[in-house]
């Protein structure tokens, strides 16, 4: 009884959700993207960009990522499953480059080009990397922060992660720029909220309690930035400059209402798009640049509806 229902259930779910899998023809160009995450709006935007390119060029893609950015081994399993499906190329955003190297070598030996995206892959195997320059982007956030608080005072950072490349780069980009260019601004603390809204809220409240004279806070990703806004609202603190990172509905609303001064946005749609586009070029044997800078922008209430900005923001 169990086994029969078991197969039926598994198969019906499978066929329901993936009618395309049955039709996979031998000459179809299939490009799986193994990302660092899946559920966050940012990754969904990357996915939509990738899908856009896939539709344009008539290739089939899949997009997968582990539930959270600590699950290094789960990402490896995803990469292994992707390899089993005879892909023409693979898009990959490594959580930990070293761990993935055996599989990447295997792909390389099989002549499958790898396109790294987002934080990239720390290896010379990928033929190209589509990414945001996080150090420079966080530096821009520091410049904007300094400008808003008048070049002196105390600021804090609520970061999303202490081990990942983006976490480290955004934190260092901000902190180093402050140290180099703004001697009168002190970064009093860097705290981590794992990119989780609730945890980041608690972290923010703790920072504000410890530093009542704080002038500004930088949140290093979507979850962190929203957490900062929540924390400030819950404590009723006023006159604090908040600068965020990435977009999402909550963050956009906060900027429109003036709670948040502004935010850095990457170009997630562009990351996805460029990754797939580069993969197709590589499959066709064309030259691809080793580094594709997908760009970043600073946006605030004044330019949030600017078509150029609105195009890279996601809800």
């Amino acid at each position, binding site marked *: *009884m*169990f*086994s*029969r*229902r*078991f*197969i039926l*259930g*598994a*198969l019906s*779910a*499978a*066929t*329901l*959700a*993936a009618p*395309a*899998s*049955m039709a996979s023809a031998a000459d179809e160009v299939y490009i799986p993207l193994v990302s660092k995450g*899946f559920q966050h709006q940012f990754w969904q935007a990357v996915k939509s960009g990738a899908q856009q390119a896939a539709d344009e060029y008539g290739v089939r893609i*899949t*997009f*997968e*990522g582990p*539930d*959270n950015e*600590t*699950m*290094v*081994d789960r990402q*490896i*399993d*995803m990469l*292994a*499953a*992707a*390899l*089993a*499906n*005879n892909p023409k190329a693979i898009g990959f955003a490594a959580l*930990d480059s*070293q*761990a993935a*190297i*055996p599989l990447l070598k295997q792909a390389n030996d099989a002549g499958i080009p790898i396109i790294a995206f987002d934080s990239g892959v720390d290896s010379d195997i990928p033929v190209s990397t589509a990414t945001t320059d996080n150090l420079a982007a966080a530096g821009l956030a520091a410049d904007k922060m300094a400008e808003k608080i008048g070049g002196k005072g105390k600021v804090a950072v609520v970061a999303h*992660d*202490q*081990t990942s490349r983006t976490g480290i780069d955004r934190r260092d980009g901000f902190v180093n720029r402050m140290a180099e260019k703004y001697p009168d601004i002190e970064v009093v603390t860097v705290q981590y909220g794992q990119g989780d809204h609730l945890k980041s809220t608690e972290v923010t409240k703790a920072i504000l309690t410890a530093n009542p004279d704080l002038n500004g806070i930088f949140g290093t990703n979507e979850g962190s930035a929203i957490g900062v806004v929540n924390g400030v609202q819950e404590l009723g603190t006023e006159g604090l400059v908040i600068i965020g990172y990435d977009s999402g509905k909550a963050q956009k609303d906060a900027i429109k209402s003036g709670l948040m001064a502004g935010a850095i946005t990457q170009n997630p749609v562009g990351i996805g798009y460029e990754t797939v586009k580069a993969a197709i070029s590589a499959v066709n044997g064309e030259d691809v640049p080793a580094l594709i800078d997908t760009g970043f922008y600073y946006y605030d209430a004044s330019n949030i509806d600017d078509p150029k900005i609105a195009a890279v923001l996601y809800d």
Partner: protein
Amino acid sequence: MTTATDIEKKKPLAGLADSGAYQKLLAFASLIALLIGFSVVSPNFMQTSNMIAILQATSVNGVLAVAATLVIITGGIDLSVGTLMTFCAVIAGVVLTYLGMPLLLGVTAAIAAGALCGLCSGTFVAKMKIPPFIATLGMMLILKGLSLVISGTRPIYFNDTPGFDQISRGSLIGEVFPALPIPNGVLILFLVAMAASYILGRTVLGRYTFALGSNEEAVRLSGVNTDIWKMRIYALAGGICGIGGILIASRLNSAQPALGLGYELEAIAAVVIGGTSLSGGRGTILGTLIGALIMAVLTNGLRVLSVAQEWQTVVTGAIIILAVYADMARRKKAG
């Protein structure tokens, strides 16, 4: 002895149901059915390399699930298996990379650290009478924090320890049979499972594991020092988590200090799918192994079929509920 045969005649089904053979058969049949089902639907599924990928994906979760099985049979629960694994991986990293000790010492240190942490959990549960759920929840968080503290919140790489990555990635089997490059990690999982199975079936510790889950008070009133045996079981489970730590560190060639949360639930899911009762007293390692394999096959198969990731999670959840329901229905029938 005529009466004895009378009873036997009256309950012809009792023997089969009690031996648990039926449940194992059921789980095994489900596994085979899944394999066949996926092979039929996707030509890419049944390849040696993909089968090996599935086995490799099972190795860490399988080892943790074996550890969790031991504790669950006593009627307890261990929520700390995931972060304990990470902690042991970090200990291996500290000993091998930071202190530059030889390979064997690092492995031993990791397993010893696991056993020690297990002993701590066991002490909380047995001596301090803290419910296992709470005690191991506390351990889970303590170990998560300690892993970050000890590692300095950075991954520790094993580049300076040649051969470390071979523990999991290398293939002794592949050297003998080149067509079958099954990674050592899988081999280790099976060795751990066989050892645990032997301990459960053939040793005093194993017998008391079942007895504690079946009726702890009766065991205590039989003059057995239940506290000490319980601590030993938790320590053994901890040591096995240590092996899990070595496996994952070797596979990633690094100790990832932030990893581990959520792994305990997958391990428990494998245990439950394998037919081990959460109320204790019943369970098999073979069942757990099959449970872990079912989870890995399912995840891999759905991926190979390119099922959207949202749906993969839904299906996995449904399977867990279905598996436990099937077990319950069977037990109710057996009366």
